C-alpha cells in the first residue's frame, strides 16, 4: 500500500507544467512581436537599419551642383584662389535652398562685420597652429596699416569674396603696375 503522505493526484505537477507552457508560448509570442523579422539576417542587427541609413536625405551637395544654376558666380569662383572653398560653408546646405533644382528659400549671404569674421576663420595669422605654407595668412589690423587703408575697412572692400585677388589684379593692371597678361601671383591664376 502506498504511504499516506504521497498525493494521489498530480494537480501540483499539472500546475507547474501549465505555467511553463504559458511562459514558453508567451515568450515565443513576445519574441515574434518585438524582434523585427529582418533581425539577424546578416548579423546581430536589423537589415532595414542599413537601408534606413542609405535613404537618409543628402543635405549638402557639391559645388558643381550649386554652380550649375549660378553661371555668373561660377565664372568668378572657379577663376580665383577660392575655387576649393565650398559654397555651402558660407551659404548653408543646398537642401535648405533647392529641391529638385527648384528654389524653395533664399540662402543667407554674409555682409559687413560677418564677412570679416568669416575671412579670419581661415586667414587669421595670430591663431597659431596653422601651417604657414598652405594658405595666405594676415594679421589684423596690421594688414590694413600695411596696405595704407583705414583700419575700419572690411575685407570685401578690396577683395572679392569669391576670387580674392580679382579686383587687386584689375586695379594693378589699370595702373600699369603689372603687365596686362601676367597676374599678381602667377601661381594663383
Amino acid at each position, binding site marked *: 500500500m502506498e504511504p499516506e503522505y504521497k498525493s494521489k493526484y498530480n494537480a501540483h505537477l499539472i500546475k507547474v507544467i501549465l505555467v511553463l507552457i504559458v511562459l514558453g508560448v508567451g515568450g515565443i509570442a513576445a519574441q515574434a512581436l518585438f524582434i523585427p523579422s529582418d533581425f539577424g539576417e546578416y548579423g546581430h542587427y536589423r537589415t532595414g537599419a542599413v537601408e534606413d541609413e542609405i535613404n537618409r536625405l543628402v*543635405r549638402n551637395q557639391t559645388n558643381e551642383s550649386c554652380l550649375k544654376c549660378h553661371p555668373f558666380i561660377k565664372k568668378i569662383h572657379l577663376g580665383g584662389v577660392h575655387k576649393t572653398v565650398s559654397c555651402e560653408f558660407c551659404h548653408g546646405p543646398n537642401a535648405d535652398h533647392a529641391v529638385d533644382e527648384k528654389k524653395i528659400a533664399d540662402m543667407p549671404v554674409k555682409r559687413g562685420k560677418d564677412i570679416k569674421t568669416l575671412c579670419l*576663420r581661415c586667414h587669421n595669422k595670430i591663431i597659431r597652429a596653422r601651417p604657414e605654407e598652405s594658405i595666405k595668412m594676415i594679421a589684423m589690423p596690421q594688414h590694413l596699416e600695411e596696405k595704407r587703408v583705414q583700419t575700419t575697412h572690411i575685407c570685401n572692400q578690396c577683395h572679392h569674396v569669391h576670387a580674392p585677388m580679382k579686383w587687386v589684379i584689375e586695379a594693378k593692371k589699370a595702373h600699369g603696375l603689372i603687365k596686362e597678361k601676367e597676374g599678381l601671383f602667377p601661381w594663383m591664376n
Partner: protein
Amino acid sequence: MDELKLSEIREEIQKDRRAFIKNVLGGTIAGSLLMVIPAGAMEFPEQIPGMQDETGIFITRKKFAFIVDITRCIGCGSCCVADKNEYKVPEGNYRTWVERYIIDDHDNVFVDAPNGGLDGYTEPREDVPNPVRDTFFVPKLCNMCEKPSCVQVCPVGATFQTEDGFVLVDDKRCVACSYCVQACPYSVRFINPVTKTADKCTWCYHRVRKGLLPACVNVCPTHARKFGDLNDKKSEIYKIMRLPHIISVLKHGMGNKPSLHYLGLRREVV
C-alpha cells in the same frame, strides 16, 4: 508624345527586321528608343569612381579608408559646419570636431577645442608661458574600427558593423543605455538629445552609397581630409598608404584597428 514600349519595339522587329533596321538608321524610331532607355537617372555626381554600380545591400568591391593630413589642416572648421548641416546635430554635440594642439619648448601640451571648432578658431591661446615649439590642428571623427568595442557592448543589436566595414547605429532599436558611449576609446559617441538615441559619425554612409564623398571631405578647402577605396590602385588613399609616409592611428594599443589614419601625427596626440 508618342512613346514606344519595349514590347511594341519587339513586335516591330518581329514584323519586319529589315524595315525596322532601316527605320532606326533613318531616325524615325531612334528618338523613341532613347525614350525607353532611362536617361539621366543619376541625380548625383560620382565623386567615388564606380560607386553608383554598387546597388546591393552592402558594398562588395570596395574597402574604404579615411586619411586626415595634419600638416594641411588650417582649423577653419568647414568640416564641422558641413557636418552640422548634414545631420542637424543638436547644439553642444559633435559628430566631428577639430582640436588645437600647442606644444611648448618644455614639451608641455596644451589642447583646446572651443565649441568643437564649429565657430573656427578666433582667439590665440594666451596661457602658454614658454615659446611654442610645435602647433597643429587635429580633426577627430569616428575611427570606423575593424574591431569596434561599441558593437561588442551593445545589448540590443542597435549598433552594428555592416559587411562593408561601416559601423552604424539603428535609432529604432537603440535604448540609449550609453554602454557604447563609454566603450568607445575615441569618445566619438554621444546620446542625441533630440532622437534620444546613441549617435556618431558614420563617414556619411548615405552619401558614400550614392557615390558622393563624406560631407566633411567634400568641403575641406585644403584637402586635409581624404577618403577613398583601398582596393582602387588609382585612388589617392591607396597611393598614400603604400608610400613611406608617417601614417599612424590613434590608440594603437587598444587593438580596435581603426580605418581612420592620420598623416603627420605627432606622438603627443597618439
